[in-house]
């Protein structure tokens, strides 16, 4: 844990103890200044001078290549949950969207929509989580915005981050490159984030040791690219593995076969899904990726993944085939086959 951010978090929490966000913090006047220069700027390390309307970024020295840009909005209940918070999600989610496009993540923006009444200590906690996640991922938060809405008009805090990264010349990842025969590599066990969030809401009267898997993946992606021919990568987030596998199948107009027995699922997640009648293949993750790689490079790439903590439990879980174009078929642990379709609506717990 970074000492500076941690010290800053503690000092600010003492200073702002017991205070809450009110409409004045978004009104553009003195109170907003106090919040931005007194809380946000120090946590994000924006102390180099007066704040301007736009960040100006040097791109010289990045070499030949292309710019990658992405944006994502983060809404989650509760704001803090075992293993991570909305702050970690807001940084790592955007970092991972850049990473899986083959980009080195560089800069992020941070836009906050706060609900009147939000405890400023909670806000400080979440911004400190963002600062730490950004440091861990090696990106800088360089610009942002704050808005406050009346009580009842937002669920505590919504965060939007945009990110830019640099794709070095020669790196070309995309669904268009998926070939028949490609192997599908999953970077680790499924379902921890989705299960941890549902349990953290406290409606299920379930207890568990499950933690969100939220983590940046750009280091893992780089190791994979260095190890061999990678064709496409997606981070496995909302909608789970089932959704990403379907995006691969439909986008490439090829078939996908997943080997259920090879898909790593923690025992606790299995039990959680059984109790509620949920399918782990649709549960959300925040630190996992699925890659399609050239068959002859699969072993080397798998070894490179397993050598890193984010990919310790990586596995080959399937392959790309010419049959059943556009569809995902799961070979069950029983040797039978079933179609895995895209999820319709939200997964709802079964009645009994």
């Amino acid at each position, binding site marked *: 844990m970074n000492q500076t951010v941690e010290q800053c978090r503690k000092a600010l929490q003492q200073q702002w103890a017991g205070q809450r966000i009110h409409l004045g913090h978004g009104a553009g006047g003195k109170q907003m200044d106090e919040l931005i220069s007194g809380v946000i700027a120090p946590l994000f390390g924006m102390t180099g001078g007066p704040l301007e309307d736009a960040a100006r970024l040097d791109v010289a020295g990045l070499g030949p290549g292309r710019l990658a840009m992405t944006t994502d909005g983060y809404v989650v209940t509760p704001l803090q949950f075992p293993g991570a918070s909305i702050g970690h999600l807001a940084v790592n989610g955007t970092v991972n969207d850049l990473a899986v496009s083959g980009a080195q993540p560089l800069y992020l923006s941070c836009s906050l929509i706060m609900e009147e009444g939000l405890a400023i200590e909670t806000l400080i906690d979440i911004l400190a989580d963002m600062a730490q996640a950004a440091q861990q991922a090696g990106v800088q938060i360089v610009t942002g915005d704050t808005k406050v809405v009346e009580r009842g008009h937002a669920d505590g805090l919504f965060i939007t981050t945009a990110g830019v990264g640099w794709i070095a010349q020669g790196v070309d990842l995309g669904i268009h490159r998926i070939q028949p025969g490609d192997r599908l590599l999953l970077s680790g066990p499924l379902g921890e984030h989705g299960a941890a969030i549902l349990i953290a809401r406290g409606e299920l009267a379930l207890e568990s040791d499950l933690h969100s898997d939220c983590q940046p993946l750009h280091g893992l992606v780089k190791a994979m690219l260095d190890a061999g021919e990678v064709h496409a990568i997606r981070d496995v987030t909302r909608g789970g593995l089932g959704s990403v596998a379907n995006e691969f199948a439909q986008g490439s107009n090829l078939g996908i076969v997943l080997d259920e027995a090879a898909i790593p699922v923690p025992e606790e997640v299995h039990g959680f899904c059984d109790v509620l*009648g949920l399918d782990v293949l649709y549960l959300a993750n925040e630190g996992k990726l699925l890659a399609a790689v050239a068959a002859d490079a699969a072993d080397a790439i798998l070894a490179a993944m397993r050598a890193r903590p984010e990919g310790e439990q990586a596995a080959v879980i399937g392959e790309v085939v010419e049959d059943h174009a556009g569809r995902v078929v799961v070979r069950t*642990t*029983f040797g*039978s086959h079933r179609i895995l379709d895209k999820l319709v609506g939200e997964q*709802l717990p*079964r009645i009994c």
Partner: protein
Amino acid sequence: MDIVRDFRDGAQAQKIARAIGELVKQVPDSHRRPLQFMEVCGGHTHSIFRYGLNQLLPDEIEFVHGPGCPVCVLPMGVVDDCVSMAERDNVIFTTFGDAMRVPGSEKSLLQAKADGADVRMVYSPLDALKLAQQNPDKEVVFFGLGFETTMPSTALTVQKAAQMGINNFSLFCNHITIIPTIKAMLDSPDMQLDGFIGPGHVSMIIGTRPYRFIAEDYKRPLVVAGFEPLDIMQSVYMLVKQLVEGRAEIENQYNRIVPEAGNRHALMAINDVFELRPYFEWRGLGSIDHSGVQMREKYAQWDAEKKFDLPRRKIADPDAAQCGEVVKGVLKPHQCKLFGTACTPETPIGALMVSSEGACAAYYNYGSVQIPVSEVTRSRTI
């Protein structure tokens, strides 16, 4: 014992499948082929498709997917009643998750929620009671549905509301009971089943005795089964063995959970709160005598049917939908004219497409050997 490992062992399943394949050859020729076994319970339907068990069995055996998905057999008029309550200003309407998507004649509860109704998903009726305590100025309605499996927890909640004097709580009771429904199906002339896979969780409450008439009067075997894939495979083996030996008996494969006499405390709670209705309307099956329960007069104060003025309209299923034939096993889901075209999980017309326990949704989501992949693809892209 490790349920995940021991009851989901693929190699064991293959072994049982081979044993079934050998045994089925000895079934007397007087039985029509393929042998048809109905799994009454939606939980079994889900497991069969989730694990592709139908593909492991020899061609001489097929599953017929029964009416045991409580969400799937809800008539549209009941959903309309729910919506009419949910849309009142002072009501918090609570329900189990997958009931939210069942289509009414105008909208589902999920759509009513989007339109502004206060509809909340709960995991237990006791959560609804808690909401009633927390919101004394609101009327909290719990939509009670399901077979004997969910009945005891609803009954206990009503008892608790009465004990604690929580008067802003009421139950919209649509619980149903399985025995009259099995009997109605056995009496149906187009039904030719060779045996039943009996519901596991229902039997945990009611025990195995109430099924005796199936063996004694209708000469059909029934095996009460657990929900793990090996449970179901073993139950099929037990059914085939009965046919080979010319027996028709009620057997209990799920004896690690199901006692012969059921659960006395649960039955007492059910009996205290509920009584049989003269008849209950099932989607696809029509009206079946004594197949539903209502609240007894002494609990009238907590009965939503008495508290609210409900439309109680009977809405016929759309003409083209063949839900009834599918529920009775006369048609396979994909043989229905609407399957995969007008009726999909996104836009369900029949309720069998709504819950993942519904036979149609299971066929759609999990595919099946009996429908080649190409056929599924074609039927969905028309």
